C-alpha cells in the first residue's frame, strides 16, 4: 500500500471484529470474537497516524510500544509485530482479549478525538494469534543465568508477567500455584467464550520454554510459609489474587442455588462442570430455569452469559444502580444484550426465599432510584419506599466482588496489611514492609483487572531486579 496521508488514514473506518452469530453463540462455549483477518488487520493498522509523541503508550499499564507494532502489522510483518509486543507483554494473546483498552490505550488515541480510536487491542490479539498459529509461540532471548532464585506465589496474571520478565533477565524463577492448573483467574474465572483455555495454556507453555518452573497444588502459607520461602529464594513476589467472595448478608444466602460468582465460574471453567458426567464436578442444572446474577462488573457479565450457555431460560443481571454506573466493559454489556441477557437495573436484593428442603425459589427485590453522587463519584442508589417485588428464581449468582484471602497474612504475621487485609506496598516498587518480599495484583488493590495485575507484576520484576543488585538495602 502506498504511504498514506494522515487525512487518508483518518478516513478509514474502524474495522469491525468478526463475531459468532449472537443466537448461535448464546448456546455454545466457543469464542465470541473470531479475530481480525490479515486484510482487516492491515487496514486497521493503517488507521494509526504514527504520532510523533504517541499518547497511547502511557495509557498501557505495561507500556507496550504500540505505534511500532502497529506499523509492523501495516507492513505485513506480523512476526515482527508479535516480537515487538512481547518485549513488554509476556501474555499478548490474553491481553488482546481481556484488557479494557477503551479505558487505557485506546482512550488516549489521537485518532479517537475525531473518529473512533485505532483498535489497538484487536491488533494486539491479531499479532499474537498470528504468531501462535503460524510459527508457534516464539521464545524471546534469555539473558545469561544470574544464579539468583525467585519464588512467584500465584500463577495468575500478576505472577505470570513478573515471571516472564525475570526469566528473560536471567533469573531462576519458580511459580507456586494453589490450584491444579496455572493461570489463576484466566483459567478459573474468565470463560472459554471470552478467553479460550488453549490460549492460556499456549502462553504458559511459552513461559515454560523460557525456563520458568511451575509447581501446582502448592498453597503458600499452608504448604510452605513465606518465611520458609525466603530461606531458599532470594526474593518472593506475592500475587495471590483476590480472595474470599463477598455475599450480600441478606436472609437466605445459604439456600441451595445461591453461588458466589467465583464458585459458579470455577465449576464451569476450571472443573468443566458443563461437561458432566464426563467430568465429575457437578453443578445445579439450570436448563429451562431462571438465573439471576447480582452485580454489574465483568465477572457478573461472565456469569450471566455462562448461565445462558448452560441452558437457562432467563438469565438476568440484577444491579442496584443504572447502566451508566456499571463497571463492566461496554463490549461485554453489548454482547450480553445481543445474546438475550435481561437487565434489571436499579433493583437491589432484600431477601432470598426457599422451599422446605432448602432450595432457592424466589428473590425479593427493592426498587431503587439514583440520588446524589457517593464517594466513588457514582450516583448513589436510594430505595423507593414501598416499591418491592418478588421474582421467581432457581439460581442466584452473587458477583459483587471479593475480600482479601487471609491465608498469607495469617501465616506471615509481620507482613503489613490494611484494614481490609490487602497487602500494603510501595506503589513504585511493589515492595512490602518485609525485606525481600514484593506483592502486586488483586491482593494489593482488591478486585481489579488482568492488565493492572500484569502491570504490577512487571513493576515488581523491575524492583526485584534492582533489589538483587544490592540486596543489603531495602
Amino acid at each position, binding site marked *: 500500500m502506498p504511504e498514506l496521508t494522515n487525512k487518508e488514514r483518518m478516513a478509514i473506518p474502524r474495522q469491525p471484529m468478526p463475531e459468532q452469530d449472537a443466537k448461535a453463540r448464546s448456546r455454545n462455549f466457543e469464542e465470541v470474537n473470531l479475530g481480525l483477518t490479515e486484510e482487516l488487520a492491515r487496514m486497521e493498522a493503517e488507521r494509526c497516524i504514527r504520532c510523533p509523541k504517541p499518547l497511547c503508550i502511557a495509557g498501557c499499564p505495561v507500556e507496550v510500544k504500540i505505534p511500532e507494532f502497529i506499523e509492523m502489522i501495516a507492513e505485513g510483518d506480523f512476526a515482527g509485530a508479535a516480537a515487538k509486543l512481547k518485549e513488554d507483554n509476556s501474555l499478548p494473546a490474553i491481553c488482546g482479549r481481556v484488557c479494557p483498552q477503551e479505558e487505557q490505550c485506546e482512550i488516549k488515541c489521537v485518532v479517537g478525538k475525531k473518529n473512533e480510536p485505532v483498535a489497538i487491542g484487536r491488533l494486539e490479539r491479531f499479532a499474537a494469534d498470528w504468531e501462535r498459529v503460524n510459527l508457534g509461540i516464539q521464545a524471546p532471548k534469555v539473558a545469561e543465568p544470574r544464579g539468583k532464585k525467585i519464588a512467584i506465589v500465584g500463577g495468575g496474571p500478576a505472577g505470570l508477567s513478573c515471571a516472564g520478565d525475570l526469566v528473560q533477565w536471567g533469573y531462576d524463577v519458580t511459580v507456586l500455584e494453589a490450584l491444579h492448573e496455572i493461570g489463576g483467574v484466566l483459567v478459573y474465572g474468565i470463560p472459554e467464550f471470552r478467553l479460550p483455555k488453549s490460549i492460556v495454556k499456549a502462553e504458559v507453555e511459552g513461559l515454560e520454554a523460557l525456563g520458568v518452573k511451575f509447581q*501446582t497444588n*502448592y498453597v503458600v502459607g499452608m*504448604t510452605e510459609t513465606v518465611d520458609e520461602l525466603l530461606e531458599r529464594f532470594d526474593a518472593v513476589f506475592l500475587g495471590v489474587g483476590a480472595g474470599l467472595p463477598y455475599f450480600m448478608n441478606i436472609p437466605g444466602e445459604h439456600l*441451595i442455588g445461591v453461588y458466589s460468582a*467465583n*464458585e459458579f465460574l470455577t465449576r464451569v471453567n476450571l*472443573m468443566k462442570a458443563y461437561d458432566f458426567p464426563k467430568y465429575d464436578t457437578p453443578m445445579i442444572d439450570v436448563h429451562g430455569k431462571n438465573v439471576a446474577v447480582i452485580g454489574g462488573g465483568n465477572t457478573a457479565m461472565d456469569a450471566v452469559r455462562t448461565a445462558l450457555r448452560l441452558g437457562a431460560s432467563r438469565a438476568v443481571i440484577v444491579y442496584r444502580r443504572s447502566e451508566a454506573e456499571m463497571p463492566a466493559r461496554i463490549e461485554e454489556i453489548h454482547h450480553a444484550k445481543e445474546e438475550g441477557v435481561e437487565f434489571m437495573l436499579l433493583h437491589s436484593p432484600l431477601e432470598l426465599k426457599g422451599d422446605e428442603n432448602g432450595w432457592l425459589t424466589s428473590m425479593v427485590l427493592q426498587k431503587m432510584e439514583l440520588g446524589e453522587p457517593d464517594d466513588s463519584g457514582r450516583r448513589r442508589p436510594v430505595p423507593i419506599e414501598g416499591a418491592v417485588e418478588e421474582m421467581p428464581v432457581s439460581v442466584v449468582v452473587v458477583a459483587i466482588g471479593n475480600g482479601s484471602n487471609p491465608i498469607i497474612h495469617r501465616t506471615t504475621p509481620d507482613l503489613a496489611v490494611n484494614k481490609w487485609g490487602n497487602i500494603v506496598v510501595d506503589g513504585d516498587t511493589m515492595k512490602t514492609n518485609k525485606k525481600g518480599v514484593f506483592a502486586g495484583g488483586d491482593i494489593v488493590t482488591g478486585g481489579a483487572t488482568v492488565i493492572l495485575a500484569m502491570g504490577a507484576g512487571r513493576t515488581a520484576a523491575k524492583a526485584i531486579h534492582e533489589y538483587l543488585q544490592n540486596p543489603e538495602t531495602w
Partner: protein
Amino acid sequence: MNKIIEAKFLAPDVKFFRIEAPHIARKRKAGQFIILRVNEFGERIPLTIADSDAEQGTINIIVQGIGKTTKQLNTLEAGDSIRDIVGPLGKPSHVENFGTAVSIGGGVGTAIAYPTAVALKEAGNHVISIIGGRSKEYVILENEMKEICDEVYPTTDDGSYGFHGFVTDKLQGLLDEGKKIDFVLAIGPIPMMKAVAEVTRPHGIKTVVSLNPIMVDGTGMCGGCRAIVDGEAVFVCVDGPEFDAHKVDFDVLTSRNRTYILQEKKALESFHECKLDKKIDEAVADQKAAKEVAHA
C-alpha cells in the same frame, strides 16, 4: 502426581491409604485436611489427614466409598498414583489440657478424630475414645486408639460388638455414671454430631465438631463451603473445619450437602455401568485369549 505406597481395606468400603506427599507431611497438624483429584476428569474433594510421617514424606487418609469419587479412589492400590493432592488446608485443631477429653468417632469419622485424640493425649488430657460403627466390621482403628487413649469404648448399632447402642448412648452413660468430662470432640455423620451436641449442651461441656461441607478450591476462593455458625456465615475451609458444636446450624449443613444428590446418583450409576462394562470386556478378552491358547 502422588504415589500410593500402601492401600488396604479397614472395613467394608473403608480403605486406608499411605501416600507420598512430602511437602504436606512436613507441615500438617492434627485436624487439617487435603483436597485431592483422582484424575484429570475428577472433582476436587476434601479429606482429613489421618496421620503423617514427615521423615518418610507420607500422609495417611482413610476413605469411605460413598459417591463416585470415593468409590473410584477405593479401587486404587499401592503403586497407583493420585493426580493432584494439595494441603495441608484448614486450621489445625485447638488442643490444650482440658482435663478429661472424649474423642467420638462415628464410622470413618474415627479416622478423622484419631490425630486430634493423639494430640489431646500429648497435651496431657485423660483421653476417652468412643468408636461407633453400624456393626462389628465398621469399628475401625480400635487398636490404634487403645495405644494412645486411657479408655476405649467400641459401640455398635446392632450390638454385634462392644456397647450396644449409639455413641451418644455411651456418652450419656458416662455422664450418668458421674464422669467429669471437660471436652468432647465429635466427628462423624451430621446426625451423630448434632446428637452429641444435644447430649453435652445441658452440661455446658465444650464440644467441637469437624464439618464436611462441599468444597471446590479449599482456600477460601469459592465460598461453596459456607456454613452457619452462631448465626453468621463462615467459610469452613479457612475458618474451620472445626467449630463449636453448640453453635453450628446442622440443618443448613445437611441441606447444603444434598445440593448435588441427583448428579451424584447419576455419576455413581455411570461409574458402576462403566465398571461392569470393563468387567465384561475383560471377560471377553480372557475368553478370546483362552481360545487363542487352545488353538495354538
